[in-house]
């Protein structure tokens, strides 16, 4: 009964989404204010129905209802409760449902948090979001219904994929999807602006917090995914330039460009077409990413099971949604004009380069990811593109960009006045280079040019980001959250750059074979196998090894890698033993039993990897801090004050130093 209820709720949700789209887009056009209000109700109803459907599916998992095919395919009577719930998004159908839930959720938040914006504009935003919801719901109901039943019910489920039985699973997809779907809000704001034929830049101010929030979530989601796969697998690193990884990275690059471009449009009314296009591009890449993962078109460890019918359906939806948006753009963008000017060394100039270089980076990643498809489409046979391509081509636009960040951060709007900051710029650069050389030559005794360059660039960004906040605090000036957030985020960027510059050249990875009491040298550390024992888990049996790690004769830590055999799926999974010692990860994964008590193992030493997780965390934190700035909560129901006119007293008071 319950699955049918869920199914029914999903159908209702789709109808409500359709109404939401209709009222939201047609209502304002025909100036029917009743329809405009109806949009909100439709959105609320859709959320309720989607939540109901999700609730039904979750309960089916919790109650071991193996008459539901999706549950039977992703669960088992021995599966712990926590994973029974997170199995909801463990495969294609459920993850789509998660996407739909998050889209409905974002829609609701938009409806609630935009009380001060013009009603018709908000209705259009909700209408566009409703159109997207409708498309996803239709696709789900037709091709990927999670409520299909098994007749007769399966006696037991075939269990959730063991790789997904990990805490990382619980956090990575929801956070990542929150980011993906959040970009739809920026997309909707842009479409609403185009539908209204707006030529001013007020929509940019309104969009900023939403775009920043989506970007921050996406940053967290990608980092969580990278962290999870690194931490879970006994081998491999944190980024493989896999097509699905790229599919999440491209929206992030465009999202970064977007939040910066929005700042320019908000501040000076410039780059309106750029900002519009970036808003459209960000979510379009999210959709393309969805497509790549589920259509079987690319070769990736992350792909869901391939299904050409689903692929075709998504592609059709893609073409309609993105095609319509880009057509709108082609129609409206030419009407956007601005007379603002700026100098070569002004902030706007740097942000222009920021836009361009980030888009180039995204386009390059896109080209590399699509290359195998293009080669096949042209009948050229198999083409394989991997890290040896992506690394150098990605660095080409990004290295100059990183340098520009440290300079541009000092630039003023309209007139750069960079000369005033020449001392600060040069001092920070010199200090960064000195520190970089000291670390690479001194701490790591290495001679990698790229490591020095990377470390210097990252250090320069951090130092440059500190200049303004420190100066403000010293002079007892205000430090608004937007500036604080910006500084924190840029510092996070610098930290991430430093982390990668250290990790790439100085990671050590070696396969060894140890018997009881034997030891092997890996990098600066000594790994010694003490012994093995048998362990039982909730749904697996494992062999656990005890290995002590020492350096210069002193024991640093003990690791406990396991080789787990899952009862149901009969898969063997290697669970790495890992400890973080002063920021460096020591990781050991069990391989095969070589007989006579000897085991093959893979040891990894990843220096300062904690920085790799800290950096993006700071970036996201900075984003959240910036979007909580007071300016986004001021009463701005009408158009912004044109330049040159005095601001109303209330607004000025809010920003008094």
């Amino acid at each position: 009964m319950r699955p049918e209820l869920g199914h029914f709720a999903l159908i209702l949700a789709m109808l409500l989404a359709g109404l939401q789209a209709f009222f939201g887009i047609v209502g304002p056009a025909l100036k029917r204010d009743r329809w405009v209000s109806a949009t909100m109700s439709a959105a609320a109803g859709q959320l309720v129905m989607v939540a109901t459907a999700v609730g039904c599916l979750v309960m089916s998992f919790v109650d071991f209802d193996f008459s539901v095919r999706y549950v039977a395919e992703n669960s088992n009577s021995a599966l712990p409760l926590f994973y029974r719930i997170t199995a909801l998004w463990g495969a294609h159908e459920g993850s789509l449902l998660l996407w739909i839930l998050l889209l409905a959720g974002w829609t609701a938040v938009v409806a609630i948090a935009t009380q001060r914006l013009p009603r018709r504009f908000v209705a259009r935003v909700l209408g566009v979001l409703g159109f997207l919801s409708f498309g996803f719901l239709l696709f789900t109901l037709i091709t990927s219904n999670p409520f299909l039943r098994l007749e007769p019910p399966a006696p037991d489920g075939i269990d959730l994929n063991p790789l997904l039985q990990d805490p990382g699973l619980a956090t990575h997809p929801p956070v990542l999807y929150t980011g993906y779907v959040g970009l739809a809000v920026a997309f909707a704001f842009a479409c609403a602006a185009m539908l209204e034929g707006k030529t001013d830049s007020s929509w940019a101010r309104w969009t900023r917090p939403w775009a920043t929030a989506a970007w921050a979530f996406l940053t967290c989601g990608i980092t969580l995914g990278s962290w999870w796969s690194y931490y879970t697998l006994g081998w491999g690193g944190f980024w493989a330039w896999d097509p699905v990884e790229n599919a999440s990275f491209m929206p992030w690059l465009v999202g970064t460009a977007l939040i910066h471009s929005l700042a320019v449009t908000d501040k000076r009314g410039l780059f309106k077409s750029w900002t519009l296009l970036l808003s459209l591009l960000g979510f379009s890449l999210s959709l393309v990413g969805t497509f790549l993962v589920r259509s079987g078109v690319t070769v990736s460890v992350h792909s869901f099971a391939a299904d050409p019918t689903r692929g075709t359906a998504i592609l059709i939806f893609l073409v309609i949604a993105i095609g319509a948006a880009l057509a709108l753009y082609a129609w409206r963008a030419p009407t956007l004009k601005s007379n603002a000017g700026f100098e070569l060394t002004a902030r706007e100039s740097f942000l222009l380069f920021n836009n361009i270089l980030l888009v180039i980076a995204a386009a390059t990643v896109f080209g590399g990811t699509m290359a195998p498809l293009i080669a096949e489409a042209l009948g050229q046979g198999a083409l394989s593109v991997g890290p040896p391509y992506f690394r150098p081509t990605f660095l080409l636009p990004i290295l100059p960009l990183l340098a520009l960040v440290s300079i541009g951060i000092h630039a003023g709007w309209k007139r750069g006045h960079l000369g005033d900051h020449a001392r600060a710029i040069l001092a920070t650069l010199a200090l960064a280079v000195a520190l970089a050389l000291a670390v690479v030559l001194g701490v790591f005794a290495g001679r990698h040019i790229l490591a020095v360059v990377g470390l210097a660039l990252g250090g320069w960004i951090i130092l440059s980001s500190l200049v303004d906040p420190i100066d403000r605090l010293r002079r007892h000036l205000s430090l608004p959250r937007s500036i604080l957030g910006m500084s924190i985020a840029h510092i996070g960027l610098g930290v991430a750059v430093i982390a990668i510059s250290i990790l790439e050249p100085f990671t050590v990875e070696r396969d060894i074979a140890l018997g009881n009491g034997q030891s092997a040298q890996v990098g600066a550390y000594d790994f010694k196998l003490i012994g093995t024992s048998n362990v039982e888990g909730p749904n697996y049996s494992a062999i656990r090894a005890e290995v002590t790690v020492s350096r210069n004769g002193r024991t640093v830590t003990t690791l406990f890698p396991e080789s787990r055999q899952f009862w149901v799926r009969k898969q063997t999974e290697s669970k790495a033993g890992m400890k973080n010692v002063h920021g460096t990860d020591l990781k050991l994964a069990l391989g095969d039993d070589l007989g006579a008590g000897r085991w093959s193992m893979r040891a990894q030493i990843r220096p300062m990897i904690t920085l790799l997780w800290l950096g993006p965390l700071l970036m996201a934190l900075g984003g959240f801090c910036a979007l909580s700035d007071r300016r986004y909560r001021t009463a701005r129901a009408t158009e912004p004050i044109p330049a040159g006119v005095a601001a109303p007293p209330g607004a000025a008071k809010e920003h008094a130093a």
Partner: protein
Amino acid sequence: MLPLFAALVAALLVFGALPVHAIDPAQLPNPQLEARYDTLLHELRCPVCQDESLADSPADAAGEIRAQIRRMLLEGKTDAQIKQYLVSRYSEFVLFKPKYSWRNAWLWLLPFFLLAIGIVVALRIIRARVSLVDRDDADPDDELAPPREERLGQRGRSTRDGDPAHVSRPAGEGAAH
């Protein structure tokens, strides 16, 4: 990103429950060979798996290819010869780095091409905007700017949003307070 290791599961079904992991502690006699071996394993794709390098692939065929590479290294073959051999058996798909060929020229030249266009576009826009600077009355200060109490005598610096507040202090210029 939900690694449904479809290929791995399928591989296990096809190849049987032989738990051959990617972990392969075979030894080579000297560190130079060891280093070359390591690099090769990361530059070559496992032809059977979904997007894994030979270093990280648990597939049986990958294990055999690794063994073959070790044999060829010990026989004194160069990296190029080893790669050529594998390409002749498993096609170019086994290379992670697309060959430098006319066929792949567009892929390798794309970033440079985009960069060139990008710079040209940027400079054109900047040139146009620079010419508007003096005709443009708008002062970025006006929009919700804080009071300009520090503006006087400070060469236009203030605490406006997004603008750095600090000043490098040449000798003789008064400090803020």
